[in-house]
């Protein structure tokens, strides 16, 4: 499951606009380390922990 789907599983009421408008930004630097949360500015939901995303 990719990072986007993991986050949506935790917070099903998030919308795609939250990810497109830089409320939440995911990034993959193509360095073999995979995607990560670059910024999290959601006013209601807290940033998931690594444990929650594992």
């Amino acid at each position, binding site marked *: 499951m*990719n*990072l*986007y*789907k993991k986050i949506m599983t935790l917070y099903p009421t998030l919308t*795609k606009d939250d*990810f*497109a408008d830089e409320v939440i*930004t*995911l*990034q*993959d*630097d*193509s*360095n073999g380390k995979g*995607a990560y949360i*670059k910024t999290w500015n959601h006013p209601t939901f807290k940033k998931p922990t690594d444990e929650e995303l594992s």
Partner: protein
Amino acid sequence: MADIVLTGDTSGAITVAAPAVAGTNTITLPAETGTIVTSTSAATNTPAFAVTIGSNQTLSETTATKAEFDTIIFDTDNAFNTSTYEFTVPTGAAGKYQINGLVRVDSEVGANLSSAIFYLYKNGSIKKRMYQYYTSNYIRAIAISMSTILDLEVGDYLSLYAYINSVDDTGGKLNSGSYTDFSGHRLIT
């Protein structure tokens, strides 16, 4: 007077010659210290580079992903790294650069692409973005290009990122070969 010969202090000479044609022309030298550049001088638009993506690259859903430009077309100063997919301004080459980018973001299914973003990153941060957004009448794929001029210092590095938002939440691909371009050169200023 046909020619003027300037003899060097220790050796050599430079001859200033007029063409053997009719008419009178005037060359005015600038009232400043400097070097006159000729057609064979080293004033070139380098460093210059052009690279492409060798094979289709997976894009995860709603994730800005560094485009893997791994195929060199030319790279005058060995300034493009095909492992990090970055152009880095080499020593002695600061200046204004024309930078170009082209990608094709493909959702791989008809009427499945909701939005796509093409980013130019400088030193790991967004410098420019092209954002294509559809509220309806979704498409399958879109080619996005950008062109800009940046003032760069030695050690500055550039990379391109792409983002996909697909209706079916499965992400997509960056197409390869002629669908892609990352190129640039320093401007003579």
